[in-house]
């Protein structure tokens, strides 16, 4: 997605001058300039290639001595910016949104979370396969923080996310699959590729694919 946005920027189709961003999470006790921090990721893959104002970007700081203050300050910053217009995220194989691991309160706000084993295992590949090097905690926006956004867009690709997608949209709302809370959001969009739909009911997939003909009519000029 970031690559596409950079392409559009380079083609002069979009500018980020007036855009404010709030990242959803950052590892605790990982140096900001570590290649696997979200600061590094965002800088390398997005910020340095576009015209966003450095003072308009916000990322949680996982290296403060007072995590609670950092998190509540973050919530205030979001409020002061006028709230989030569009929240974009992916999901974990266990259906977690941001680092709201299974068992997270669906009423949660920005706070520190301990990562579960699945997440740590999945992350190990970014830390040379050495489990001891993978961070075990992260600061993350809460489920309610995401719900407060005016629009939510969840991007899901790949068959390994298929089961999570099934639980997220075809099962009930459950704190064991925190992205399912989006079922209560007024304006949530799930964007999925074919492989991610592998565990959905044929009926569900047919219905949403069928909507495309209507959507196309809406955007025809």
């Amino acid at each position, binding site marked *: 997605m970031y690559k596409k946005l950079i392409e559009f920027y380079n083609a002069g189709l979009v500018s980020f001058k007036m855009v404010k961003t709030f990242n959803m999470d950052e590892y605790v006790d990982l140096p900001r300039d570590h290649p696997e921090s979200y600061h590094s990721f965002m*800088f390398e893959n997005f910020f340095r290639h576009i015209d966003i104002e450095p003072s308009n970007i916000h990322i949680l700081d996982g290296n403060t001595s007072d995590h609670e203050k950092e998190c509540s300050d973050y919530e205030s910053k979001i409020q002061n910016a006028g709230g989030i217009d569009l929240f974009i995220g992916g999901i974990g194989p266990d259906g977690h949104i941001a680092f709201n691991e299974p068992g997270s309160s669906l009423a949660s706000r920005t706070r520190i979370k301990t990562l579960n084993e699945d997440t740590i295992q999945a992350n190990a590949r970014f830390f040379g396969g050495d489990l001891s090097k993978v961070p075990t905690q992260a600061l993350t926006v809460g489920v309610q923080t995401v719900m407060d956004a005016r629009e939510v867009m969840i991007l899901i690709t790949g068959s390994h996310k298929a089961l999570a997608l099934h639980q997220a949209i075809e099962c009930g709302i459950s704190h064991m699959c925190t992205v399912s809370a989006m079922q209560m959001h007024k304006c949530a969009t799930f964007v999925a590729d074919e492989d991610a739909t592998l565990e959905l009911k044929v009926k569900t997939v047919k219905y949403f694919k069928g909507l495309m003909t209507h959507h196309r009519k809406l955007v025809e000029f």
Partner: protein
Amino acid sequence: MQPKRVKYDSDVLSTIADNQLIQFINCSILKSNGLKKEHLWVQNGRILDERIVFFEQKRMADVQVDCDGLILSPGFIDVQLNGGFGIDFSTYNSNDDDYKSGLSSVAKQLLTHGVTSFAPTVITSSPEIYHKVLPLLKRSNASSEGAGILGAHLEGPFICRDKKGCHPEQLVITSLGPNPSETIEKVYGSTENIAIVTMAPELDGAQKAIEYLVEKGTVVSVGHSSAKLGPGEEAVMAGAKMITHLFNAMQSYHHRDPGLIGLLTSSKVTSDHLPLYYGIISDGIHTHDSALRIAYHTHPDGLCLVTDAIAALGMADGVHRLGTQTIHVTGLEAKLDGTDTTAGSVASMPYCIRHLMSATGCSIEFALHSATMKPVRND
């Protein structure tokens, strides 16, 4: 506030105020791992970490310099330069001020060749000259006034008479005597401003001399020597880090007696000593392209570009001085008066870089690293 955008050749760059943040865009930056299409941030003459600028300073650039897709490289470093633009570092004519102003004028004009650091090289000279000239070759930082001085490169006088090249025979000293450190102090005077010494390792007392110099932090380079491989290896184990203009002024390669050239593949040069650097003059004249390729393929990590340029660098064809010698220059060739001996080169560093690429087919990154990163590591 929107940054002011200028081209890389704009005058604005010479009037940058304190604390102004400059961002070089649209360029390929030479880094240790190759050419990267990134931005370079500079403030108050220092390069900044982009992320610190972004996450801490949180400001956009004051001036954006559009480099038009060109390569942004660190300045070139020439560790063997005998002079240029009419000035010869081995000649001390009248007084300190004259010498110093000659030195500054070379430093300033070197910037036009992209060279931002150099080691003024003094060929075999009398102790008198060393005593006068060395104190004037202090280390200095590069600035817009001229390239920085790394310290002196003393090429001689402790060399092999048979391999003197165009050095004056009568001033060559072929033995360091029973007390080499004393001899060094006596001949050179103060060793304070010496960055590199070229010495023949087979000379009497050379091993001790090398140890002494290495201990003082001087880089020792073996050259102007007819040593077999053995003394060369001993020199490296004693701390010598470099070979002076490979192939020139040394024994030719022989398969049973590889000489100093054999150091490139010596098993005694272990990881403690690696990489062993060697200066090479890639002007197409001092080294046949085929020999250049052999060195490049055998030990690319040690390849360091030097010009070994003389006073005639940057000047027209004609007659010039180098120390006490007279040199004739025609095109890219410079020969010792009355002989056919090559007497240093008149090729600029950019020329050497380009020639290295065309002769060996190496990448531009490799060629540029050989004129920048490797000379630095050597120091």
